[in-house]
């Protein structure tokens, strides 16, 4: 997700034009890693140090990494680690923009720093969820008895992070047995591939819990299951699925999603025949996330 959001940030701040970003994003697919760009992106070197190494390369026929190590800017371990690293997408975008002379090293360093500050997330809390949820997720998959791929696990972990980020910073994740699920209200949204294969994703819960979820996301009190309730619950699922698709896009998998639905009195099983469920428990609500097997939904 970082590459897309970083690209949007560059565009929104006027650092690159729409045409330059378009060219950069298309070029990044074919971009080969350069140690200088990676070192600046990782914070190992400053743009001035990169310029010094480049200057040195005009005098001597040696590789960037070798000179940087000699000058004490990088350790050999750092060079080897960067050479072995798959080029992260946001660095590839930065490098493509540098190659096209849209940005220089200083611009990239500054933009990355600004972007990280502008989008700072509650890292401690996120790490706690990510680190803490592993056992629960494994247990959940085993108890559901389902053959699910890593896509569904990633989907649930992302959902937990989005609940923490947008709704309730104290929310926790736990397994739920699928044979017990019926709900007062359910929000659903289809994910689709280019072949027209469809998988339904959903959030379900009691009337009171779903009202709480809607109120917390809308940041205003919603006491009735009215059009505002429907708009808020639906938009949260829509937001989460959008972020999930952006993450997938980073790994080369492109899916689409359809409009969301919010319905009363829905039973899940007939609508979502193959799924696992995870319960998200907040301070004032508990809802279940219902996830289909996403591993058999190719591009």
């Amino acid at each position, binding site marked *: 997700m970082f590459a897309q959001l970083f690209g949007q940030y560059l565009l*929104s701040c006027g650092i690159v034009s729409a045409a330059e*970003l378009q060219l950069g994003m298309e070029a990044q697919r074919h971009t080969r890693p350069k140690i200088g760009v990676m070192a600046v992106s990782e914070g190992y070197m400053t743009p001035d140090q990169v310029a010094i190494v480049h200057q040195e390369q005009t005098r001597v026929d040696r590789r960037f990494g070798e000179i940087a190590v000699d000058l004490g800017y990088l350790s050999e371990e750092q060079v080897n680690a960067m050479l072995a690293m798959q080029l992260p997408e946001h660095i590839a975008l930065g490098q493509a923009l540098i190659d096209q002379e849209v940005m220089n090293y200083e611009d990239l360093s500054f933009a990355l720093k600004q972007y990280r500050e502008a989008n700072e997330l509650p890292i401690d809390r996120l790490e706690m969820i990510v680190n803490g949820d592993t056992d629960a997720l494994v247990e959940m998959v085993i108890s559901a008895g389902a053959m699910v791929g890593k896509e569904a696990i990633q989907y649930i972990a992302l959902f937990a992070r989005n609940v923490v980020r947008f709704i309730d910073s104290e929310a926790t994740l736990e397994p739920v047995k699928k044979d017990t699920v019926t709900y007062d209200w359910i929000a659903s949204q289809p994910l689709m591939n280019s072949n027209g294969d469809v998988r339904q994703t959903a959030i379900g819960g009691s009337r009171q819990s779903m009202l709480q979820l809607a109120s917390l996301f809308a940041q205003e009190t919603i006491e009735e299951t009215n059009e*505002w309730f429907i708009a808020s619950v639906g938009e949260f699922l829509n937001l989460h699925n959008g972020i999930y698709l952006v993450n997938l896009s980073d790994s080369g998998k492109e899916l689409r999603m359809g409009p969301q639905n919010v319905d009363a009195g829905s039973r899940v099983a007939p609508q979502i025949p193959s799924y696992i469920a995870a319960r998200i428990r907040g301070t004032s609500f508990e809802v279940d996330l219902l996830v289909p097997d996403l591993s058999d939904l190719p591009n």
Partner: protein
Amino acid sequence: MSDLTILLCDDSMLIRKKLRNTLAERGLYNVFEAADGEEAVRVFEAEQPDITFLDIVMPVKDGLQALKEMKQIRSSAYVVIASSVGTQSNIIEALKSGANDFLQKPISANDVTRMIQKMLQEGAIG
């Protein structure tokens, strides 16, 4: 700036309400709304907005198709795609179709202000 005409296209009335409130706080009241892509194109043609915020996933007609039709109606239209689906293919298609910017949801008040200021700086009104 207070006489700017703004079009908000999103199937979520919650998003439209929040954006409308944000604009009102900045003294911007000439705001029109559309809840699907077809309505978006119709209101766009009728009201000739200075800036349009356009969601992608909408019923009837999606935002990328609506964008293409808006650009056919008025190629100088200033359109910001505001979507939760900032995938590589969507961004590239939006930019190719003439979108002036792309915002990943959730959209903050600062995002909206920044987009309007950017449009004014680029002298892209009308």
